[in-house]
């Protein structure tokens, strides 16, 4: 959920929303915000599932240190979504295990 108004920071400045494709669905994100923030704005918290047990994982540290938030972005696996800025038309998918590189089989 976006915080539209804040007692100290004031209302959110108007921004350009751009489309972001998440597992085939389009959501609207602020250009330049971390992918994870765009997902949280829609209540999407699952980033990946683990390799062996398929357990769900999401954001933990929010500053690029723990790698729990990695997803596949434009075909590239293991992208830390908490520190990777949104660009218009990006395609993000929930990652399974270690993910697949574009030319992997």
């Amino acid at each position, binding site marked *: 959920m976006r*915080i539209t108004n804040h007692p*100290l920071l004031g209302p959110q400045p108007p921004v350009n929303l751009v489309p972001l494709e998440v597992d085939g669905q389009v959501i609207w994100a602020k250009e330049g915000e971390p992918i994870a923030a765009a997902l949280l704005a829609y209540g999407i918290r699952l980033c990946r599932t683990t390799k062996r047990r398929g357990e*769900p*994982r999401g*954001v*933990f*540290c929010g500053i690029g240190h723990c790698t729990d938030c990695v997803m596949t972005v434009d075909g590239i696996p293991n992208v830390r979504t908490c520190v990777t800025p949104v660009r218009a038309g990006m395609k993000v998918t929930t990652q399974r295990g270690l993910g697949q590189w574009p030319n992997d089989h």
Partner: protein
Amino acid sequence: MAQRSLKGIAVVGGGPAGLMAALTAARHGAAVVLVDENAEPGGQLRKQIHKFFGSKAHRAGVRGYRIAQELISDCTAAGVELLGQSVVFSLRECTLDLLQKDDAFNLKADAIILATGASENALAFPGCTLPGVMGAGAAQTFVNLHRVLPGRRVLMVGGGNVGLIVAYQLLQAGAEVVGVVEALPYLSGYQVHAAKIKRAGVPIWTSHTVLEARGDQEVQEVTIAAIDDHFHPLPGSERTLAVDTVCLAVGLTPLAELAWQAGCRFCYQGALGGYVPLHSDNMETTLPHVYVAGDIAGVEEASTALEEGAIAGLAAAAAIGCPVPIAEFDAAQERLVSLRKGPFGDIRQLVKSEIVKRWADCRVVE
């Protein structure tokens, strides 16, 4: 790999300590490059929307993010070169290896100041890996910097200043905080921070812990329980709370990998978050021309990080031949020491003195 040689000082980390170190050194005539992994420097100051403690000399009463803005523009005015989106992955003597976007290169400087900060500790309990369990600092980043709520109903684990402040800031952002649990029988944070959230109707449960978080794919509820003097849960005291988020504010650990790599000597200081590089009063490590400042040198607060940064900046500038009046060292030391008084500061002052003593012992032996 491309090489660059700098007749000056490289500062690693653009939080309060690094910004202040860079600014201070540059103002004394040193050429300074400030390396930071983020697109914009400021570190964790950028999400600190509360007013800082201290005195006027420490910028007391100013909100943290404004201090970051001020320091960044002062650094630019003083001629500090900012290398953003650059990750330092190794340090040997005074040479940094770094990765800027996809380009690796190395940077050799006359002196290095490490101001890499700290990372949040995790806590192990069933369900602790579910999406929705996150560091309190992570929640604070999303709420205050990116301005999205990580969840609507939050349990805060940890009654230190981080837990109390972030609980308050989650309320300000419009989330509901169902309570704060603290394993100790008392809160380690300031009572004034606790008072703010109590007035706002948030219960604080001391001698309590989190037993388990549950949910399908993400957190939907959490069970807490009272604990005895040995931190064992008391049967029958369990209670389950409907929350979608569990924030962990259970301490920080210095991010000291580069100092380890470089070969700095360390000691363990639980009161400061773990292993810290031995350092002098002037923030010099056991390696010549390698300095530390801020949480890497022992987890304290942003205000102490600023002062340690100032001292490291002065010392590094002096070490490479810039004229630095001795009175400036004294003034900075005095500002720093004034923050380490009273029941909260005394212990940190004691431990810091111990670190300085061990640093001096190392110097004698080698």
